[in-house]
């Protein structure tokens, strides 16, 4: 193990939870993310593949590092997203619950302030999110929707690229306890 990889791996759960988002932001930011996902693609169709609600979930989980609050936060965002879709409520809820939980678990072992780690994690969780959603739709609803691996990987990279500046902005909104 090199010095660099040791630096990336954390030996103990993250301690930098002293600064947190205000409660109002915790409510408003997901709503804004879902709203933008609903409204913006009307004019820029390409941006339909930008999963802002997912990135918000990942950011929250990585910065909090507490699995229980992260999974509930993921569930909240997922259910809001479900409410605006024509699928049964709970599809996005389950997927984002899992994303929140695993992202919080990962944040205890990696230095999530590192941009490289952030990029890789955002990419991974985007792919995980899309794949797991596809599995759920097939398994629970019996719908045969297509899963384009190449396209998903490409959009995963784009979402990861968006995640870097987005996480910086969200970090600025934090206040010290």
């Amino acid at each position, binding site marked *: 193990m090199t010095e660099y990889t040791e630096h990336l791996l954390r030996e103990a759960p993250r301690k930098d939870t002293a600064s947190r988002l205000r409660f109002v932001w915790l409510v408003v930011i997901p709503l804004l993310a*879902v709203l933008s996902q609903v409204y913006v693609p*009307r004019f820029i169709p390409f941006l339909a593949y930008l999963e802002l609600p997912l990135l918000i979930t990942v950011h929250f989980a990585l910065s909090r590092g507490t699995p229980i609050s992260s999974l509930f936060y993921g569930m909240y965002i997922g259910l*809001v997203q479900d409410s605006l*879709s024509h699928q049964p409520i709970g599809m996005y809820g389950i997927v984002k619950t*899992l994303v929140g939980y695993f992202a919080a678990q990962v944040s205890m072992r990696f230095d999530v302030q590192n941009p490289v780690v952030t990029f890789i994690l955002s990419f991974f969780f985007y792919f995980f999110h899309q794949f797991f959603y596809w599995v759920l739709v097939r398994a629970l609803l019996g719908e045969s929707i297509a899963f384009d691996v190449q396209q998903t990987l490409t959009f995963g990279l784009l979402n990861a690229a968006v995640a870097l500046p987005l996480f910086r902005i969200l970090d600025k909104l934090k206040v010290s306890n």
Partner: protein
Amino acid sequence: MDFFLSRYRHLTVLLIVITAQLLLIAYQVRTNKDIPLIRVWAVTAVTPVETGLELVRHYTWGFAEEYFVLLGVRSQNETLRKENGQLKIENNYLKNELATADRARALSVFEAHSPSKTVAARVIGNGTGANSKVVFVDRGSTSGVESGMAVVTPDGIVGKVVDAYPTASLVMEITDPTFAAGVISQKNRVHGTLKGEGHAECLVDYVQNEEPVEVGEWFYTSGDDRIFPRGFPVGRVAAVQNGKTFKQIYVTPSGMQGGGVEEVLIVLQGVHQEIPTGEVASPGYQILPLPAGAVSETPEGAPEPGTLGTDADRLRAIYKQVGEEEKHVYGVGAPGTKPPDFTKLPSIHGAPPPPVPKPKVETKESAPAENPADADQEGLGEDSTVVDPNSTPAVRPAPNGPDAAVKAPAKPPAKAPAKPPTKTSAPPNR
């Protein structure tokens, strides 16, 4: 047990939450019921903001657009004033004429003449999910909208309402992979099921290989699905090939041309209509035959209807004709010189102010036999959507093909002619 719960507390909570959501989904799928409370909360929280954003966008973008149009018009007017004052008049007139080809007016005309009771709605946002083809419209249950209602435009069907909330409704477009509707072909009356494919074209399924379906043929709603009233246009066949058991018929939806819609009509009370037998100018617009004994109002020297592409072309020809009669050469007269007399121009819509130019009077007796388009229209039958020729605005077919329709002029002529100013023009390429 306590040890297990404390050791695996996080995992336990995760499992409980996941299980609860799975049960929620199972309940919805099994009972085919929704959880209205959560959806109503979310939609009520999001759609007013969307409506506000859409209004802001509409007015700011519309203002900016008008500003730039006015900038262009102003500079153009200055140039025209230097060159010729009369060209400026022509330009303004043309702009007014072209402005009548407005989507919203087309919608209101369709709404007024459709036998079904409809309500107009504006698309305010998309549904979530990359694969979903659902949109939100700004009319909800307070406007009488209910789940399962058909959503159409004058060009064709758009989708159906899958959820109605107080302030908005969720509409599934016909391109959604889970969409289905009963359709029937115009020519051979072949029944099938229209299915969304997730992209621009839709599939008409369950049509036996032996059934005759041709490329270019129109499909209409059959009314079998109890959602779409019979007789609404669906789209034109883009490709047909035989499959294993059923034909693979791909239809280009006429209501979704351009990839999306902005204004739609929600059918509150559908009225079944018969499938049109003749060709239509545009889906939803029937071409009316000339009333018996009507006279053609085409002025002498003016181009015959159908020989020129648009109203602008016809108006240009009329100006050219008047200029030639008065021996005026456009672009030559210096500012201040006497312009030709344009006060007695014949109308391009067939209602010329008397008495100059002298109209060529034609009786209509021989017209149906000579004009194949008129002959077509005689076969429309009683079920066709009939538009009162004297009603305003009237819808007329565009002379340049079946996909355009031109409405009556915004201003009626100063003095009405003795006979009804009905003017029809058959598309030249029929």
